[in-house]
């Protein structure tokens, strides 16, 4: 009887936490939509179609196309480069590194993944940014510098996540593959990866989400120009950088304030799309 009560309490607590989490998510969506409505009503499709981001001018313009495209560029390029590097690092640590080597490197990577992004941004701003003008590149803060900052920020966490999912694959599977004559690299990239696919996909989604939501690195290293860069060394500004730099000055309930909430809504929609894509990919892989 006593045990039953304990069990029921546990279940109830778990239920409450899940409901709270779901309610918080819906709450965020609700407030983002609610606060965005004035901008959506007043600016309409121009929010997506125009590049004219002039929130403090008279008349103000709220074209977010460049900011949205920049966020997509940064996320796509970042994820496409970070994930393969993290994957091969994880494969190496999983299958080829010695036990001691693996333990030391893993600790180091875990430590790196915990470094606050503002520190990475400051170091790169101080030491790497001045190198660009010396190389004949006009803009010391640009898309490339922001991407380099993001690589340092996300490669460690992405590696740890992928490694964890690879390590969870039963050893027997790899041994069976080896017994059939497969080379280790082939075993890890084909058999282990396939078995660890849900975890790997999850790592990719988390990496993409981390990149799309990253603020301080893109704010300090991106150059703050609200235009679509034509080359890697052009300056640019993302949705998160716009929110961070402009929210403190946007008068509450003004159109500018509402437009920044709309930027937040676009960001959360991106995250949802990543999540749904990963769910769809997982389903397909299970078939």
């Amino acid at each position, binding site marked *: 009887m006593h045990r039953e009560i304990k069990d029921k309490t546990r279940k109830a607590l778990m239920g409450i936490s899940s409901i709270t989490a779901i309610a918080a998510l819906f709450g965020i969506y609700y407030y983002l939509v609610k606060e965005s409505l004035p901008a959506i009503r007043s600016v309409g499709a121009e929010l997506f179609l125009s590049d004219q981001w*002039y929130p403090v001018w008279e008349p103000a313009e709220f074209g977010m196309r460049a900011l949205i495209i920049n966020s997509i560029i940064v996320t796509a390029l970042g994820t496409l480069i970070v994930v393969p590097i993290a994957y091969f690092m994880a494969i190496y640590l999983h299958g080829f590194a010695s036990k001691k080597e693996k333990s030391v490197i893993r600790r180091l990577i875990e430590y790196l993944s915990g470094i606050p992004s503002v520190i990475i941004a400051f170091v790169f701003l101080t030491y790497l940014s001045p190198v660009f*003008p010396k190389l004949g590149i006009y*803009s010391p803060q640009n898309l490339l510098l922001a991407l380099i900052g993001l690589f340092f920020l996300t490669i460690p966490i992405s590696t740890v996540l992928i490694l964890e999912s690879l390590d969870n694959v039963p050893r027997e599977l790899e041994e069976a593959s080896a017994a059939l004559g497969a080379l280790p690299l082939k075993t890890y990239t084909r058999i282990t990866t396939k078995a660890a696919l849900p975890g790997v996909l999850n790592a990719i989604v988390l990496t993409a989400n981390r990149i799309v939501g990253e603020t301080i690195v893109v704010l300090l290293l991106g150059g703050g120009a609200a235009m679509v860069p034509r080359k890697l060394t052009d*300056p640019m500004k993302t949705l998160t950088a716009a929110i961070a730099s*402009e929210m*403190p000055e946007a008068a509450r309930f003004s159109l500018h304030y509402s437009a920044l909430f709309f930027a937040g809504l676009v960001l959360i929609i991106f995250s949802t799309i990543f999540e749904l894509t990963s769910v769809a990919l997982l389903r397909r892989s299970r078939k």
Partner: protein
Amino acid sequence: MRKFFLTVLLVSLFAVFGFSNTLVIKGSNTLLDVAQLWVEEFSKMNPGIKITLEGAGSSTGIAALFNGTTDIANSSRWLKDSEVQKMLELKKWFAPVLVAWDGIAIVVHKNLPINNITIDQLRDIYTGKITRWNQLNPNLPNAEIVPFSRNTASGTFEVFKEKVLGDEKMSPRVRMLESSMAELETVAKTPYSIAYFGVGYVDQSVKVISVNGVMPTKQNILSYKYPLSRPLFVFVDVTKGWPEEGPIADFLRFIVSKRGQELVEKAGFVAALGQ
């Protein structure tokens, strides 16, 4: 047990009174250096007052005054129409105290062979009509102009916008930076760059050029000959009356005193009073 309660009571009382003697100052990034000097000296004279100072832009400071999250808002510009409108709606009244005069210095990279620029040329650069230095003058290098600006929360940005751009819009090519210090450091390291910030931030690492043939010297700023001259203010909430006593009143008296104004000059600006 009794002793314990007495200690708790004393500590709480101390905490309450300790916290009542606080002063929060927020706003202009331009005024941050001066404000730091004021705070250091004022704290020495009034060790019991706990002061928090933050420079995140004039607009941020004035917004904080509306929210009641600051006691004093530093501002490198006058109130915007929208802010005056909001004051009327909320029945709040902010009073300005003129604390210094400043000129918005136009700075370029040290090696750039340019010594003067006109307001029209500045407008052409910042609106994106001119993108290469030799378009300004054939003797200048055939290189891309790298323009920097303060972000839109800045009072300096507002004054620049009003005095230089007028109704025209800033080109999206212009790189927005978060502070005057960031602008100074970036221009020092970036060939072919141009930026603007309060004259108090200028040092040897960059080159100041004249505007319409006038340099931002003390005399030219005070006489308004320099076209980008401007007053610097601190704003306080006087909805419940002018502060006659307490930390806000003491601090305001200090910054307009002889010593407070000497510190304005020390920071590189022009004193507003008693000079």
